[in-house]
């Protein structure tokens, strides 16, 4: 079976050790996390985690069920790509002197990125969007000399009525 991209959203207790439980589960079962983002929700007792992973049908089923067994996990959902807005934030620093700045600024315009820091030799940008857009931006900047890349990992929210609720709330 072919590997597919999996976007998994979790509502979890906002307590110490929860992230360890989740990352530990992936590690010991031999599943990879491609990216993970986490933050508090509107309810301070609940955090929301978005995990991007890859796997076939077997891995998908095991990840979902094993996560569902964790006591601190209050909801686990495989996000339906067609009904989900996916975003990731990128911060990237490149070599840029007065001669090469123009090339970088072209990309900033096209990708609708934002310059957030400038020195005589460097330029730092932020860009949000889907992963593929971020990848394309990095590919363009690469020959110009990337110094540092920071990516937050993907975060995901359902469109319209597609709302995640804890099992208790449902």
């Amino acid at each position: 079976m072919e590997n597919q991209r999996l976007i998994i959203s979790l509502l979890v207790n906002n307590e110490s050790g929860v992230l360890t439980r989740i990352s530990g589960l992936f590690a010991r079962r031999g599943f990879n996390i491609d990216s993970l983002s986490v933050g508090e929700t509107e309810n301070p007792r609940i955090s929301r985690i978005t995990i991007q992973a890859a796997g076939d049908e077997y891995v998908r089923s095991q990840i979902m069920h094993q996560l569902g067994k964790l006591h601190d996990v209050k909801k686990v959902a495989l996000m339906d790509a067609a009904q989900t807005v996916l975003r990731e934030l990128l911060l990237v620093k490149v070599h840029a002197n007065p001669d090469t700045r123009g090339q970088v600024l072209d990309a900033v315009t096209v990708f609708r990125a934002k310059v957030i820091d400038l020195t005589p030799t460097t330029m730092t940008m932020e860009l949000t969007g889907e992963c593929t857009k971020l990848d394309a931006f990095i590919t363009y900047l690469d020959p110009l000399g990337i110094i540092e890349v920071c990516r937050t990992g993907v975060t995901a929210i359902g469109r319209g009525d597609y709302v995640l609720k804890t099992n208790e709330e449902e």
Partner: protein
Amino acid sequence: MKLSGAQILMEIFKEQQVDTVFGYPGGAVLNIYDEIYKSSDWLKHIITCHEQGASHAADGYARATGKTGVVLATSGPGATNLVTGIATAYLDSTPMVAITGNVACSLIGRDSFQEVDIKGITMPITKHNFMVKDVTRLADTLREAFSIATSDRPGPVLVDIPKDVQIATCAFTPAKGAQAPKVPALDAAMLAQAEKLIREAKRPFLYVGGGVQIAGAGDLLIKLAETIGAPIGASMMGLATVPHRHPLFLGMTGMHGRYAASIALDKSDLIIAVGTRFSDRATGNKQEFSKNHKVLHIDIDPAEISKNIPAYVALVADVKLALTALIDAELPHSAPEWLAEVQALKAAPDNHLSMDASILNPELVLRAANQRLPQDSPVATDVGQHQMWVAQYYHFQKPRTFITSGGLGTMGFGMGAAMGACIGSGLKKTLLITSDGSFHMNMNELATAVANRLPLIILVLNNSVLGMVRQWQTMFYDKRYSNTTMNRPTDYCLLAQAFGAKGLRLETLDKMDSVLDKAFSLPGPVVVDVRINRDEMVLPMIPPNGTIKEMILRG
């Protein structure tokens, strides 16, 4: 009323009807032990020689009774000594609550004396674990721990309580008592599919795992087997759930399974697997195992469905609920040819392999012990050849009488587990079948057994080698016996005497009855050094990752 954290722990024990705790005191649990001292009129505390023994005892207690086993240990090494016991309970789904003390909150994270992150260490081997840093959260956390340990698929839960939380006081509100775990409803659509599958099956086979025993559903399983005309095979954890004497029962399947059970499973067109997780020791080669039959998998844990063996249809449900629904479905009985074929397998010579009866051998010893022990008495084992021989030759008739470490395969489990099972059974005469290898691991607990005057009969099947590893070295490593020939001159009779127990030696077949009669007549504990041949094999054997076609029947 205001109570200290340690007092709250006692109140929760009362609420949860805990009357027996296994443990070992130390600096970080002094306050708890002070309350145990004051609670001796209703709470029995068994002090072991080592925390590992206490953890296995709590496990054995839980397996024999179905109640939650409770173990208590101090911080640091006390806590880490529990790890093997907790992992053993986790792999075999035993309900257990482990309470550990820890250093005071102000000392946590400073590498203080006897400080260890036991919550971090036990994360992958507990259903859940807690560290309670606020005494006002203690009562509810403990209640939750007991609830998690027993609900759905049971398992161990650890609660780490820093010393200052044991001392701090807060108001305590008693709860109404232990809450019954919630049982999810049966999925009607899946049930209909399951019924259809059974209706279409010509050669159904019921495969019983440990989950049936945990659910207390042995009788329902037999009812279903009789209704649909299906033979019954068991994983090792499923043994004792169905009485051995039942005509449809074929015995254990898997690596060392019985001939008829393994062949019947292979010839079936539908495996109805109940409360089992298809361990590699039970299935052998998973691709081959899955060929030629459909699998109807019934289990409370959704993560077990299709984890090891793909399920054609699955019922994620309490086993009792699922079996009741299937019994009520008025399913047809299989064709008489199928059961006739099964009976022929059962009668086949290959299904009645025997060891050389001219010498003292494990089969004869186990059959003789079986005759002498009441059917409702617990039988504990360690891990290795002796364990497999018990699984093959001991005829269990009552649920919860076979106390053995399946998933983790913990050598050293037996001594503690036998004590816990003995105490849990109300001090019934308890048999521990062990071996010289396993017994050497945790024989220290003999002192606990003596101190508590436990009626234990300990049969050490002594072949002076690590028999199971040696068997593999014989079969798969060209007889290179690396580190399995022990050459230990241990005198088990003197050893037993030194601990204050009785010791007997059994060396020849002609003495078997008299020595065993003596052993069973003593109040216990008694250790019997049973000398067996070092090249005795566990057979049949299907090699690891092998198939039924590779079954080795004779050495």
